[in-house]
């Protein structure tokens, strides 16, 4: 039996269906991403798991128990909020220890676990700082430490990296993945960033208008999107003669679909092409291998393998 089960979960605000019959099963230790555009119901789903929003219908079960019957304060879930929601009047150590105090953990044990957790997120030297005195990335780690120290059954991450700049976000993705592997906590990530979802999770739930469009491993969802929405949301796509083709699957050849290069953009590790063809405008991505590439205005032929 799955560890966490969302069963036919729905939430209606007035006449708006925020979440519409969502069913997801999460295995113990799994990292699952709820991915979708804003307003797709992913955050509402997270808040229903956390207990801040009550579902209109459906069930949430954790190890077979009805989670909806448990008060939010007693669910014992670790949550990292988008804004971090750190307690500004407490030091890092006080922030992290708060959850242990609420659980009534003995003082000696508290000190030990706070030190361990701060070590885990690489903030051992910052225990006496106030959140205001730290960078965004450091605050993010404090929020993670505060959520992990209570040894939650489930870790909920609500757009945890969206307030960081691009470079830091990539570093934190790798670190977040490593930490999750180390502690093995079942994790649910809510994000609108498909790269983040694919980088971090074992499985992604692509959501649209309150429904799950596809549930599966990132690679599978990317290669075999169940719906046009999933195909579009998970990356660039071309619709050529009724078939969906990823731009990086198309190559320049001596035969194939004839076209003329309209624009060529250099992006460091790859070239981004827009090619005018009889079938419409086609986007092509080619790896930068150092070889000469067709210039703008050049006549080319496009070839690709039919999707499996």
């Amino acid at each position, binding site marked *: 039996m799955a560890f966490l089960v969302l069963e036919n979960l729905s939430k209606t605000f007035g006449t708006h269906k925020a979440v519409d019959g969502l069913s997801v099963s999460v295995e113990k230790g799994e990292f699952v991403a709820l991915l979708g555009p804003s307003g797709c119901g992913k955050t509402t789903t997270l808040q229903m798991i956390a207990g*801040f929003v009550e579902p209109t219908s459906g069930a949430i079960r954790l190890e077979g128990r009805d989670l909806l019957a448990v008060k939010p304060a007693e669910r014992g879930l670790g949550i990292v909020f988008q*804004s971090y929601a750190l307690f500004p*009047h407490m030091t890092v150590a006080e922030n992290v220890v708060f959850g242990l105090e609420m659980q009534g953990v003995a003082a000696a044990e508290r000190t030990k676990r706070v030190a361990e957790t701060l070590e885990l997120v690489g903030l051992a030297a910052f225990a006496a700082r106030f959140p205001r005195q730290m960078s965004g990335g450091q605050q993010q780690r404090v929020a993670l430490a505060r959520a992990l120290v209570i040894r939650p059954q489930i870790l909920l991450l609500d757009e945890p990296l969206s307030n960081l700049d691009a470079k830091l976000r990539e570093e934190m993705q790798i670190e977040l993945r490593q930490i999750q592997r180390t502690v093995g906590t079942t994790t649910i990530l809510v994000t609108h960033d498909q790269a983040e979802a694919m980088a971090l999770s074992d499985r992604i739930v692509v959501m649209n208008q309150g429904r799950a469009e596809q549930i599966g491993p990132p690679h599978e969802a990317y290669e075999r999107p169940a719906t046009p929405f999933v195909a579009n949301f998970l990356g660039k796509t071309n619709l050529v003669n009724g078939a969906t083709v990823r731009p990086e699957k198309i190559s320049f050849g001596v035969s194939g679909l004839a076209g003329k290069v309209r624009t060529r953009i250099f992006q460091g590790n790859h070239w981004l092409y827009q090619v005018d063809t009889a079938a419409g405008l086609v986007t092509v991505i080619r790896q930068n291998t150092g070889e000469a590439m067709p210039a703008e205005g050049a006549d080319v032929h496009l070839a690709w393998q039919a999707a499996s």
Partner: protein
Amino acid sequence: MKSTPYLLSLPALLLFAVVVVVPLVMTVALSFHDWGQYKGIEPVFILKNWREVFTDSYYGEMFARTFRIAFFVTLLAALFGAPEAYILNRMKSPWRGVFLLVILGPLLISVVARTLGWALLFGGNSGLVNKALMSTGLISSPLPFMFTEAGMVVALAHVLMPYMVLAVWAALQRLDPQIENAAVALGAGPFTVVRRIVLPQVMPGILSGSIIVFVLAASAFATPAIIGGRRLKVASTLAYDEFLNTLNWPLGAVIAVLLLVALVLIVVSASRLVERRYAQVFG
């Protein structure tokens, strides 16, 4: 040019000097003048008025009463105003707007009218509340309200409550909307959330509201004049009487200057304290 900013602010500085600094200096000077029942004010330099205020225990009592009332008004305003602001902040529209109007609405009505309302409810045997309570037999004699310190404290706390609510409300607005959820998720009950998470963060708001309420209560005139009347004088009503009834302007000036100096000292040291305490955390 270097002097341009000073030249540009000259008109405002002039106005400030004429309407604030000059009258203040004149009031201080006035406090050293002599006064007699028949000779009026004599522009000489004597310490008679200051000596009188500092030696006659009547004035000491009066200042003690003024600040005692201001202290209890502040306490009452904080005890009721802070929870009021918290509840208001948790309300959803349209109720939030409606109740905000109910709380701030009295600011649109004259202080005199609001204080007279209390007088109508509790004034002696004919006060509405007193009458009603006596007719039900709950009390045998009217509740003492008029001409009592307790009455002044209650009426002033009512009049000044909106300032406290606004100050605390502003502090609550700066709170991260997820912060209470974060504490709840970590296992905190509603009482713990308020005591350990919300209250410490709105404390600067409560303290700045307290400074405003304290100053306004200590210098209030209309409410003490109506509720306290001639029997229970505070600094502002006594200064008024010296100026307009006894016509002893120099003595009135001493009282006015003393009240001003005391309030400035209290406000400056209180806000210093608040700033030092919270600079690190909320800087």
